[in-house]
């Protein structure tokens, strides 16, 4: 399990670097560090939602530069997405007890 988690960590970090550049990698390191430090998974989910909700633009002035005028919102939502991605990955790799699910539809 530890090897699997390490591999997930590397892949996750690589993905965050790819999609977010050096800032993405920094966010990835922070999320991994929090996980290593024993921060519970639910805290990562909650953090994800909290960051997503920070995407509110600070000014209603609309123009072609609207996106770049609200880069902070872009970054915060990006952190939220990164946290959700990690929490989801962990959820996928460490499913709740019960083992591998049975086939829902038996092949006919």
């Amino acid at each position, binding site marked *: 399990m530890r090897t699997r988690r390490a591999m997930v960590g590397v892949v996750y970090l690589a993905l965050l670097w790819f999609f977010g550049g050096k800032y993405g990698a920094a966010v990835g390191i922070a999320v991994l560090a929090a996980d290593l430090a024993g921060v519970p998974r639910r805290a990562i989910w909650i953090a994800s939602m909290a960051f997503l*909700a920070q995407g509110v633009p600070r000014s209603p002035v609309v123009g072609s*530069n609207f*996106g770049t005028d609200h880069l902070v919102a872009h970054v915060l*939502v990006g952190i939220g997405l990164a946290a959700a991605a990690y929490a989801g990955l962990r959820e996928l790799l460490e499913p709740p007890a019960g083992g591998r699910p049975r086939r829902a539809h038996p092949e006919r």
Partner: protein
Amino acid sequence: MALHRVPLLFVLGLALLSVPILLQPGRYLADTHDTLWFAPGWYLRHSLSVWQDSAFLRGQPSLAPMAAFVWALRSLGFSLWLVQRLWYGVLMATAGVGAALLVHQLHPRLPSIGALAAGLFYAITPYALAYGLLFSPAFVPYALLPVLLLVTARWLPRRGLTGPALFGLVVFAMGGGNGAPQLLVLLTVGAYVVWVVGVERTVGVRRALAFVVPALAFAAAMSAYWIFSGSPKEAANALAYSEQPPVINGASSYAESIRGLGFWQFYGGDAYGPWIPAVRSFVTSPGLVLAGFILPVAAVATAWLSRWRTRLLFLFLALGSVVWMAGIFPVGTSTPFGRSLSFAYRHIRLVAGLRTTYKVGMVLELCLALLAGIGLGELWSRLEARPGARRWRGAAAAAAAVVILAAASPVWTGSYAAPRSARAIPDYWKDALRFEQGRSMDHRTFFAPGTLFPVYRWGGLMEGVGQSAPQISPVSAWPFPVDYHYETNLLAAVERSYQNGFHARRTADLLRYLGVRDVVLQNDLDWQRSETARPADVERLARDRSLEPVTSFGPVGRYTAVSGSGSPVDAQLRAARGLPPVQVLAVPEPRPVTRAESGAPIVVSGDGYGLATLAGLGYLEGSPPVLYSGALDPMTLRTLAADRPMFVVTDSNRRAATDFSTARGDHGYTLAPGEGGAATGYGLFGNRLHSQSVAAFDGVRSVTASPSAPPFGGQAAFAPSNAFDEDPRTWWLVGAFGDPVGSWVQVTFDRPRSLSSVHLGVPPLELGRRVSAARLSFSDGSSVLVPVGPSGATATFSPRVSTSLRVEIAGVQGPDPTGVGFTDISIPGVVARRMVRVPDDLTRMARDPAVLAMMASSDLAFVFERARSGSQFLPDEEQGILRRFDVPVSRTFSLSGVARLDRGAPDEEIDRLVRGPGPVSASSSSRFLDDPALRASAALDGNPDTAWVPAGTVGQWIRVTFPRRRLDRFGMEAQSMPGRTPISQIRVAFPDGSSFTRPVPPNGRLEVRFAARATSSVTIAVTGVAYAGQGPPPPVGIAEVRIPGVSIPAAPRRAAAPCMAGPAFTIDGRPVPIRLQGSIGALLDGRQLKLSACRDALALGPGRHDLVAAGALQPDTLVLASRGTAPRPAISGPPATSVHARPDGGYDIDVAGAAAPFYLVTGQDWDPGWTATIQGTSLGRPIILDGYAAGWRVDRAGSYLTRIRYKPQRRYEAALALSAAAFLIAIAIVGWSRRPRRKA
């Protein structure tokens, strides 16, 4: 599915079906194509043909399912707006019910409220209302995405072909378009299949393949009809001319995308408000913004708290969708993903087709809706056993209702407004269209002016009124040359007169080539919103004597101008109010669209703009066949020998960045070879350099500049070379409405030069910004920072040898966002002269001896036109005509043209022009309003009623130069009258440096005496005035300067201008004496006069020649014409033809009694797919005839049938057959599987 759910889903569907009826009831919303809505039957019939005689149908037969829906309802008598709303309603209901059914399929035990909520969350979103309904073909895949997932989820585990057949039918129902949404839908379904096979492992690989392979086969077969309706070349072309990734991802931040926004058009606007008003409140209203985040947060909460395993698939799909939607945002500082995307966009066409990343929004919206709906459903279940369940459930339902109501706010607040809509087309337009339908059907109807966004004062349409009546073969200038390069170029050239402010002359000669019979003037267009020519300018067509007025429709002044606004002195507004909303003009002796032509052809180097110039000069009278040299090869050219063609080289088809977003066709300055990349101009003749007019430099190797902001590539009048031409009237300017710091201009010398000083002159833009610092960089790597003041700067530095000088703007000063730059960057000994090298493709073909022999004996002409702005508010791109051209063989030319006085020319040059050279000259600092009558010599003509009047007071000067003489006095008479500021003091200066001042008495008369001296000039500068009024003082004036023995008698206004020769008009550096046909008075009044060479003929040898015509006499057009020695062939008319248009887009043409070679013109834009055969014998590859059309030279006598076909039609018909067969098979399979079965 449980039966108790059916009524709920029915109610959901009915509710969603009725939502669009609340959107602007009674109004037609501009969506997709006007033809599809107004004439769906016509649209359907023509969907059987892959070639369409309209720029708005090509490659769009994929919309046939939508057209069938519209046609069926309209046939039942439903009104247009109701049909449109029902169409939207069906899409929304399909989306909502499909999403609800999908929830039931994926999570069978979920309470119905979860499925209903998911359906509403998905169907009612800003994405659906503000994007989907405005581009409804792209919304169909959105509506069907959940249905396709439902089919996949339900039938993936099952055996048989029912599921794959249903899958194919759903994909078929999506229609086509550019294919991007369909591909995204399939990718989403693919992700689901991978998930259930690879992660959940609920379906085996073999079973999955047994579903996927036939499903994709059905989908591909049923989509074949639209996949093969276009060509890869068209797709690439569309990508080149549509919006680019930096624009697409300009606002697609994660924060906006995750709310279903981020589409770049949502954030744009103009003086008339937001481009898409329906969505603006989602960006500006705090409540709606907050509500927009509820769904994403709820989706993440579901992913966290739910135990439903598939939730993670939709979580990951949602995350991936947001990242994809953001694309290369933030533009310019992209991540590795953004850079990879940019690279892929440039190099992989399939990826480039997916660059409109906003379309991924449908996947995001579905994932969020499913997760939030399932979260609500599970919450509903969990609350059941809790105390206070009703209260908590009520709160949960209320939260869901808030999300739905917020998303639907444009509906229930009544604020929904499509960018363009109309209540009805006015009756006068219906009368006009009926009138046109009663005219001959063999011709086209030209609607002027063209526009990309037709907004009439009574409402907006998608493409214009003409397209609502396709039976009349409407044609209008549409800016983007996406499919129809040559036709678009020619139509833009036809429009040049009224779009760019030129006189319309012989427009009918051009329109005949297009098969136009009638010209319909749309005076009721809101020209400002439509970004096109105003009615008073379009009226130039009505004044064109080549067109005949026929009739008009509608009351005078109705919708032709904004009532009650505008300046009362606005003559154009007054003119517009005196116009009827619709005028019809006729082209005399029109020619059919598809036709035979005969006569000596004209082979033109250039493009449609060159043809427009030739038409104005009368070259196209009689409609001779026209061929473009850029599209010919020597072998084809040789076949024309017997027709004795005339060769004309123009300076059109310029290499320049062009703004295709408006009908005005704004373009940048003429670029040098290699500048501008591939996307320059109309892309004619494969963008080959030898067919283009390009910039060439004299005196330096090159002048380049930093790339300017797209799309203009630098305004035409402010070319970089203006900074090095030593003409203070021409400027290099950059950075208007942007940040010019960092922009640079560079001159590369023809040899290494020793530099020690450079003068930087700045434009006198008193109210705008100016350069405050510049960095000079040299080829040795050194640089110098120079502070620049309001009057420029002279930089001196240690001498250094350099091969180039780059001047970079290092700082600017001033409040307004005007462009900044330099009038001149003066380097001792360096003057850059920008010429235009005209196309030399003919000369290159003349390397073929047979072609050379043909050109030696044929008529040959060079026709040059000065690039002008046509606007009094914009300077011209060129001040003169400087051309570099090649003569293939020694010829003798006559010179003709038209020219006018350059009002900005120096005084002494004007004198030289009207009087010829003389011993006495007078110059001055300026002239009031540049009026030539107020030049310096007016003070030396002995007439006190005329005067030198400068543009100012103190600091202005007049200088008189004469043969050296002894002088001890002179007299002066300053003007003292209303409208002039009295002069109170002058300074007199001599060439030896001596000077003195004198007071001027109030009556202005002054006798100046001084110590006798020998001198050759006197300069009188105004150093004091007597003005105590408010505001800026009027100018001073000096009526007379009396120097004994020195005068410049006024040239008689009625006298003919003399033969003139000088450096201003040369060929290869040798002056060419020219004569104007007109009086001196007409010249000074600024009228355009004809000119010719004083000598009879100009002999030019083979090779390259430089023509320079610039100076006080400013030529507008110049023609060097040489008559050929070959006898003209006897002109016989074209053979009689009978044209039968086929439903497949081809033609059968019966030719009767052909006695001589002739040209067969399809009248359709050139495309290599056109073929022609006579009794099974091919006529070969089509040539470009008459500036745009595919055609052939036919050298076959007698009577026969010619079959013209569009080759891709055969492939299209095969694809249609395949799609039809696959459709029928799929229906049969589904029908068979649903048959009633007897119970065992």
